[in-house]
């Protein structure tokens, strides 16, 4: 088996693959496996285990690996360490010596480390010819431990059909490999054979196992050297049949930064320097206040009334939300900010009702009209803009709103070429007005207070009984 040097496909000194997302993970895993194998620096003991008539060289137990991971990566839960270890195995960095399925077990199961030659960071994309040579080679060696598994036998049969015409060539390559292998020392061969098998377990996984070589298609396109010749595992020269993957065609060359780009950057930075920012202590307080205020409404953190539909299979919670008869808890939210009140359709209704009772609903109706206006399809914009003007701003408008002269001027200018944001300034002004004036009064009003304290006009005592009976089984399951 040819031991080649690292992938030399990249042009230039800097490997363009270095900071691709897969590489970042590979480097981290490689750091971990290197540390695990470093006995002097707190790694695990890699030893030869005696078994029946033979010796098993260079192995480590699963339990040892799990222990190491827990200690060195600050993992408290063994399940997490097993999960991480299994992923490291699934990517081909460690493997069980007697199983094709690459997972980590927290027991005496023996594992071996993969040779750096076969590491995924070498960007292997082995062809089926290589796989065919490998399977063929296996059948030539009369060793029980190298017998083909069912799925491998099926794969071999399929490859024989696919490569029928060049099977002689493949057969010859396999024979050559067997010859090379025979020259090696027995113990060394055991190790190399298992590593080779583990390599193929990654690139041709057992049916049903995750193929960890799959990449996120959005990131594939960024490979900078798509025409790199794929390296053969067994040194088979490329016969020109391999095509660059179609995903790579048309990947964009990176633009050089121009003077304009930097000028834009400078303008941007100057704007940022002029921006008034808040201290972290202040924003931290603000974030805490907001979150704490809403935690009673957060089903992941607090119980919801009457019950979380997903837990109890009872959709009352959703029905209540959809109804226009809000619960006290919901009404309380309207008092947090004008934004919250307007977010809730019931809140909007009540606020409108209050304003109508004061004969000052035009502000809110204007605000709502503009919100709706911004969401209209493009072709409706000009006509709707006019309608809003007529209703709220024109001379003698039926719902005349009180805009300051500056905003009024700006708005009437905007309307000469009406767009979705023509009323933006006006809307902002009206929102501020409502916030400082009518919203505060709304919160003090009877309409709001009655709902908040659930005062009902009827003298009848209402009794609302809610049962929350939790299934014991569920609770037991939840506890584990």
């Amino acid at each position, binding site marked *: 088996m040819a031991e080649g040097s690292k992938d030399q496909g990249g042009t230039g000194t800097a490997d363009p693959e270095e900071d691709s997302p897969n590489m*970042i*993970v590979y480097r*981290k895993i490689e750091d971990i496996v290197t540390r695990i194998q470093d006995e002097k620096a707190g790694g695990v003991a890699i030893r030869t285990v005696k078994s029946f008539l033979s010796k098993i060289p260079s192995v480590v137990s699963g339990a040892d690996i799990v222990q190491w*991971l827990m200690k060195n*990566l600050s*993992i408290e839960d063994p399940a997490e360490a097993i999960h991480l270890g299994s992923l490291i195995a699934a990517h081909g960095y460690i493997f069980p010596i007697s199983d094709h399925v690459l997972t980590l077990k927290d027991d005496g199961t023996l594992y071996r480390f993969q040779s750096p030659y076969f590491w995924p960071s070498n960007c292997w994309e082995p062809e089926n010819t290589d796989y065919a040579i490998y399977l063929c080679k296996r059948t030539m060696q009369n060793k029980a431990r190298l017998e083909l598994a069912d799925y491998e036998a099926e794969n071999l049969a399929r490859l024989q059909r696919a490569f029928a015409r060049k099977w002689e060539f493949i057969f010859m390559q396999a024979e050559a490999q067997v010859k090379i292998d025979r020259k090696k020392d027995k113990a060394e061969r055991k190790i190399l054979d298992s590593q080779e098998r583990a390599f193929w377990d990654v690139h041709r996984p057992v049916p049903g196992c*995750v193929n960890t070589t799959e990449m996120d298609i*959005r990131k594939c396109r960024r490979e900078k050297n798509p025409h790199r010749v794929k390296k053969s595992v067994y040194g088979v020269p490329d016969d020109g049949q391999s095509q660059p993957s*179609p995903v790579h065609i*048309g990947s964009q060359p990176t633009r050089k930064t121009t*003077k304009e780009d930097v*000028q834009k950057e*400078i303008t*941007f930075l*100057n704007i*940022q320097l002029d921006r008034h920012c*808040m201290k*972290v202590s202040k*924003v*931290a*307080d*603000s*974030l805490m206040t*907001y*979150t*704490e*205020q*809403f935690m009673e*409404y*957060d*089903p*992941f*953190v607090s*119980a*919801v009334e009457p019950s*979380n539909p997903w*837990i109890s299979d009872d*959709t009352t919670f*959703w029905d209540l939300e959809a109804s226009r008869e809000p619960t006290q808890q919901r009404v309380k939210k309207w008092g947090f900010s004008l*934004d919250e009140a307007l977010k809730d359709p019931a809140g909007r209704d009540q606020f409108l009702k209050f304003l109508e009772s004061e004969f000052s609903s035009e502000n809110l109706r204007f605000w709502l009209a503009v919100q709706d206006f911004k*969401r*209209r399809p*493009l*072709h409706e914009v000009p006509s709707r803009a006019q309608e809003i003007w007529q209703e709220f701003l024109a001379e003698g408008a039926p719902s005349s709103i009180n805009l300051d002269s500056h905003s009024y001027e700006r708005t009437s200018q905007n309307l000469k070429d009406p767009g979705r*944001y023509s009323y933006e300034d006006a809307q902002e002004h009206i929102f501020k007005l409502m916030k400082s004036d009518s919203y505060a009064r709304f919160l003090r009003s009877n309409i709001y207070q009655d709902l908040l304290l*659930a*005062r*009902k006009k009827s003298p009848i*005592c209402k*009794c*609302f*009984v809610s*049962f*929350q*009976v*939790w299934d014991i089984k569920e609770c*037991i*399951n*939840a*506890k584990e």
Partner: protein
Amino acid sequence: MACQGLQKGETLESLKRESETLKKKLEEERNKLNDVELHQVAEKVEVLSALSIKTRRVLKGHGNKVLCMDWCKDKRRMVSSSQDGKVIVWDAFTLNKEHGVPLPCTWVLACAYAPLSGLDNKCSVIPLSLDKNENLAAKKKSVAMHTNYVSGCSFTNSDMQLLTSSGDGTCALWDVESGQLLQSFHGHTADVLSLDLAPSETGNTFVSGGCDMKANVWDMRSGQNIQSFESHESDINCVKYYPSGDAFASASDDATCRFYDLRADREVAVYQKDSIIFGASTCDFSLSGRLLFAGYNDYTINVWDVLKGTRATILFGHENRVSRVRVSPDGTALGSASWDSTLRVSWSFSTGSNYIFRFIKLLFWVNSRLVLEFTVAF
């Protein structure tokens, strides 16, 4: 005040130097405001009692990786898109598949549910195409026309406008009915992978994240880049606003999630662990913003305590990369999509106590404004 750099004779080098000076100055100014860490201030906050979140629904039906999912406004329906070329609308509550829409292109990267629920289960999907002229939406409506794949899309509070992010490095706002481009957003120097609209009723901004490791905040009105954050060490796969709209979180291939505050104009928290080495592909906040759910390429979902910066719990279950997590609109459940071709729905069983109990709550409303609440636990 630094010169505007528009004078003749300014070379690219001198402009770059000017830019570097300004960057350093900006960093200094911002650091003056960095008087404390968020998690230090959050020490006053009560510790979350042990969360018990379980997956109790597994939606099977896709034949290949599920790349995207979104919740319907009715809080129980979901739409999902998969590499098998299908878009499925599910009632996650009953596990029923309600619609299955096959699409001509198999690389469907993004889907979003139109906010008008109930009229017809309308959903639009923008599929990826390797051919630049082949962008489509369901009902054969061609809306977004980017020159590269469309990585994400979001309706802007109505189904009349669509905001998209693309591998061509731009974001764009479209009028759905006419297909016209309303505004484009330039500034990223590499693929834009994700975007999120500000949650406020009064806001007109959105945040985007991309392969240039930057998260940018944009003004939808002017197309201007208002703020930019660059602290990740690799691609930003997902950005999501904190519910108040004053901050946002990002998930990246550098195996961290980060939390940025817009008013302080800086990163205020990093969510990471030695044992988390795989990239985070997606994130979403719980309703109060106390929890951040993040899906990773190691098949897990880590749940972070946003304020304290610690991990609250970890969810196992998916058997391949988690491509998307979304909290339902009323915050009652978490939906997750994965390359294992399933979707899962999880929720919290704990409400402050790990004890098994049965309780009856009795609430009385009396017109004398007296509210009595009895909680009996036994």
